[in-house]
């Protein structure tokens, strides 16, 4: 493509570009391979179109409300990125810390003893094989291309073969530019027979922003990876996220999402189990209040024989909030002896709120054990009555029941300071809506 600006265009003061064009993508700096990768993605993005709600996987979504031109890509200069003080509170004990500011990794700390043994936590732009790391993620849709096209950097975590990382690797994201579009990428490669926990925390100031985060989890043979993503974005952030994973032979992935914030917050989770005996546990807790909407799409993709997946997504909506869960279990021709389970349960806490739950199965082989269950409904009257008959005020009874409902998932999250704070955060959020509780 003609008209590519000179590399010197790396922004200093002028942090914002005006459009999502290949020309704009080409102004981001970095090594040649990175710029070539961005440009190619930008050209593919420009040649295509945004999805719309007529596609099944976008049905019920708010994609039609997205006006990309209303946002500007954030370049976030590295030196402006002192992390907000509150971010360090959620980190606790850790093997590594990455601060990602408006999509760009700006601070990386790794336990020196682990680094000496080969643990890599770095910006892809600084790695000799950074191009390969970015290439691991399959393209789900136009937003994956857009992410690649405007990545200011990318966080790569590589756990070497056989390494057991006791403390979590913590990645803290923060958005604070009004009107920005943020493109973050996290790539975790868990080497053969390694063991690690990665926790990502997303927050924002109360800004109008678009967020298009992409996560790739590559779990090598016999590796154990626990991954938790806590989304606590401000109420005016529109998120279209993608979390992709590949699970190798006899490997185990435990991947969890806790979603509390955003205006519209979508996460598509694809888990490909392509090694015999691989297991993928997918869990989520989401609580949407106000007028926000949480939107989850999942694909449990069984490629190899004797693979297992178990999905448990539990959500609650209140006020006029909405949620969508749509999930597919796909069992390929080779995936004999597979076990696949999918459960989605939703509590509707206010009359004006609503939840959709759409499970799907696609099975191309015999000899599988497969089940799905979904439910949408209000808090059980009898449960509420039982607690109230003990003298518990209705708003407290409701809070106990909702926390109890979520407990099944929260109890499965990797232990960490971040998780300890989650129950408190949920209690706070439920308390805030207490005035909206129904009559006893």
């Amino acid at each position, binding site marked *: 493509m003609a008209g590519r600006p000179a590399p010197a265009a790396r922004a200093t003061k002028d942090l914002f570009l005006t459009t999502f064009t290949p020309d704009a993508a080409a102004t981001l700096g970095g090594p040649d391979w990175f710029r070539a990768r961005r440009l190619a993605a930008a050209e593919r993005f420009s040649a295509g179109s945004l999805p719309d709600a007529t596609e099944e996987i976008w049905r019920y979504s708010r994609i039609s409300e997205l006006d990309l031109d209303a946002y500007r890509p954030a370049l976030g200069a590295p030196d402006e990125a002192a992390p907000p003080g509150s971010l360090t509170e959620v980190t606790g004990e850790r093997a590594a810390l990455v601060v990602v500011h408006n999509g760009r990794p700006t601070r990386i700390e790794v336990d020196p003893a682990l680094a000496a043994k080969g643990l890599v936590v770095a910006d892809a732009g600084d790695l000799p094989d950074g191009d390969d790391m970015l290439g691991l993620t399959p393209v789900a849709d136009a937003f994956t291309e857009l992410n690649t096209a405007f990545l200011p950097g990318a966080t790569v975590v590589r756990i070497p073969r056989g390494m057991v990382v006791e403390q979590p690797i913590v990645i803290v994201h923060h958005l604070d530019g009004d009107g920005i579009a943020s493109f973050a990428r996290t790539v975790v490669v868990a080497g053969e027979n390694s063991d690690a926990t990665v926790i990502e925390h997303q927050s924002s100031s109360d800004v109008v922003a678009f967020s298009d985060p992409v996560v790739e989890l590559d779990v090598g043979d016999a590796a154990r990876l626990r991954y938790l993503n806590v989304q606590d974005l401000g109420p005016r952030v529109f998120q279209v996220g993608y979390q992709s994973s590949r699970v190798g032979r006899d490997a185990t992935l435990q991947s969890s999402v806790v979603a509390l914030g955003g205006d519209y917050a979508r996460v598509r989770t694809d888990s490909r189990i392509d090694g015999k005996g691989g297991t993928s546990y997918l869990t989520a807790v989401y609580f949407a209040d106000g007028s926000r909407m949480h939107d989850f799409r999942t694909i449990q993709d069984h490629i190899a024989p004797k693979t297992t997946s178990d999905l448990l997504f539990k959500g609650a909506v209140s006020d006029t909030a909405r949620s969508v869960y749509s999930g597919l279990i796909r069992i390929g021709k080779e995936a004999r002896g597979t076990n696949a389970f999918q459960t989605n349960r939703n509590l509707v806490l206010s009359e004006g709120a609503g939840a959709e739950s759409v499970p799907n199965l696609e099975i191309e082989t015999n000899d599988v054990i497969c089940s799905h269950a979904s439910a949408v409904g209000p808090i059980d009257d009898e449960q509420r009555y039982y*607690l109230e008959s003990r003298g518990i*005020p209705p708003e407290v009874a409701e809070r106990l029941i909702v926390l109890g409902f979520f407990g099944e998932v929260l109890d499965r999250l990797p232990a960490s300071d971040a998780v300890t704070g989650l129950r408190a955060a949920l209690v706070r959020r439920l308390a805030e809506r207490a005035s909206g509780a129904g009559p006893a």
Partner: protein
Amino acid sequence: MSELVVTGLRAGVEGKEILRGVDLTVSSGQVHAVMGPNGSGKSTLAHVIMGGPGYEVYGGSVTLDGVELLEMPTWQRAQAGLFLAMQYPTEVPGVSLDDAMAAALAPQGRAPAEVAGLVAAEAVRVGVSPALLARPLNVDLSGGEKKRNETLQLAVLAPKIAVLDEIDSGLDVDALKAVSQRVELITNEVGLGVLVITHYSRLLRELRPDVVSVLRKGRIVASGGPELAEELESTGYAGYDEGSPAA
């Protein structure tokens, strides 16, 4: 001295009248047994007094120490000193007994640690395994464990008046003894008033009533002393057909 007074209570479900004018009184330290066959309205009476969902009140009153309960939401009735031990205690996934008791006593300014101490001590008295205290309420409990659990909560919450809705149904001998002895002790020690609703007189040999009333087709048709329970045991409810309401 507390008094629960039910006067002319008419109530039902979906417009169908089940209680057709019930009058009874329970005072502190007293055990008042309401007996009746299936379908007589026993459980309806228990839930209408507590304000259960789905029940409609068509007339009458229920007062505790002169305060009308029918106008209060359930939780306020409980805070006013009423307790209902349920026939089928509801499973509440993810909510532990400790958390529920702490939340129930918080409005009275009691600290969670103090409440946990009460719960633990009471668990020993009624034979509830400590392991059950942190488990979700009533989830995967046996019938006997559930009733012991209700009794434990009764003791911890220390109400003025307790309604026991068929707390004896399906209980083994040991659990029946443990439950009724504990209730009897609280009645004697702190003057709990008990409205015990039952189908069988078996419970009443353990938990000795001062007054026995017979509920049939939504009305109290006979009232008397403990001997009435024994009489029912031998003759059954057949003698109490419509048209002969007793004083």
